[in-house]
């Protein structure tokens, strides 16, 4: 199962590189969302270390996946969604005013 965990970490790292290197503001926000997805999947996959089955009591099953990280990560999904929607809204306003999504140009124009 370790392979899937490493894949999740790789997703997070690739997305982080995207956040750092992409100059397009929308791409940055998108990469940030991919990063959230990576973290969420890491939580879900890691809870499987404790057992294989869905955490609902059923006969003949001894090892359950840990329900707590899966329950907790719902909050992080919501926060990720809020961050995404708010930042896209502000990007819309910035693009309306400055006519560009390039971060370097926005930086120049915003400082005036």
């Amino acid at each position, binding site marked *: 199962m370790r392979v899937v965990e490493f894949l999740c970490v790789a997703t997070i790292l690739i997305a982080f590189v995207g956040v750092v290197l992409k100059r397009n503001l929308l791409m940055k926000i998108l990469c940030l969302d991919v990063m959230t997805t990576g*973290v969420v999947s890491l939580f879900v996959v890691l809870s499987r270390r404790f057992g294989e089955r869905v955490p609902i009591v059923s006969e003949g099953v001894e090892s359950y996946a840990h329900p707590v990280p899966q329950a907790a990560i719902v909050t992080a999904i919501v926060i990720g969604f809020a961050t995404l929607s708010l930042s896209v809204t502000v990007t819309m306003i910035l693009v309306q005013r400055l006519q560009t999504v390039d971060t370097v140009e926005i930086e120049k124009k915003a400082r005036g």
Partner: protein
Amino acid sequence: MLRFYLIYNFTLFGASVLSLSKRFLKPLTVSIGFVNLVLANYLYFARITDRLTLRYSFGVALLLDSISVNFLLMNAVVWLAAVLVAVRKDLRPFYYTLLIMFLATCNLAFVSNDLFNIYVALELTALLTFLLSFVAGKTVQFWAAMKYLLLCSAAMHIYLIGVILNFGQKNSFEIAGRASSTVAVLMIVGLLMKAGVFFYSMWLPDLHSSVEPEISTLLSGVSIKTGVYAILRLSTFIKDHYSIVAVFGILTALVAVTFAVNERHYKRILAYHTLSQVGYMLVSPVYGAAYALAHGVFKGFLFLLSDDLPTYDVKELKKYGVGLPKWFFLSLASLSISGFPFTIGGAAKDLVFGTLKWQKPFMYIAAVGTVMSFAKFLLMFKPKLERVKNLPSYLLLSFYCLLPILGFGKDPVKSLIVFFVGTVAYLLVKGFLKPLPRTLETLENSFVLYVLVITLVVLVVMVGA
């Protein structure tokens, strides 16, 4: 007590959402501020400690102790002072709703005591800070807030990886025992971004200097302290690697103060000083909370005063001069941040310096730098009478500046020597000071810088292990 406190804060959330009529909302906001101040004072002076744990849970807990009460009192004082200014302005009702939510969120952030709760509280304050910072709708504010949100959410994701790795090892979100190296590094690099440390939080000077005065009071006084609180709360958990935090504390104190001494824009000076002062809180985990309280009071005071100044350019300001009641407040806040004896800043600085060992000489240099950049405000006195706009807030903050809640300071002579040396140094070098470039503060550069510091920290830990 904590059960009551939880219900109280949820009531605040409810009140903020339900009352959208403008006429009703302003008095409500102010009265909430006073009630909260009384409550925070009670918690502080009665030294109440309490613990609340969720049943069957995996370490999810709230904790009220000597660290929390300092932060709670700071939150109450700064929030009330900012709100007394905000209600005088004619803004949309939604703005006051956000302000009340901000208070409740920070109250809860300062009592949270497990890894996941800290994450949720920090992200909530980040979102509220983001929304509050562009109330006036200027393009600069939108862009500064955007930078803040992008950098902070990326950093908090890194923190979250640390949380789940720790859960995999210990089967709990509890802050107990010692973290493994990987977990500690991930948490440190995540939280330092929120706490306002030079090389990490390069969004800070732009954001804190461009937003409205009362909002920058809240951001500098309370918002960044959520990150500081998290680090102080985790200080025993990450004890094996706390020296990384301490080293960055010293670096931020020294580098940011250099930028501040050279700066000429009033609010940017204050923003750089926020970066520098966070260093004092981080080097001494024992008295960091007390210093945070003092910093909230005097930095909030200085940021609020920017509302009353005719211009932000320090050179222009010198020409205008500062009239009497204003000069009194400005010099009281400046003396307090410079660590003058018998002010809250002086007492807090003495407490912090008392616990330092090898860090002491560096921090003394930083203290001299602080005096250097605030000496100029003391010399701006002009014998004239001026009207002040926000008198109630100033009186509240002056009261807490002079109230000896942290004692009187142990070593007034040393503080006076630092003060004297700083003033003389300022008079000597004042002709050579020029604002330093802002290249590090663009979004691209701050991200690259962040990656560089992460790499550096990882390398240091790997070599050390």
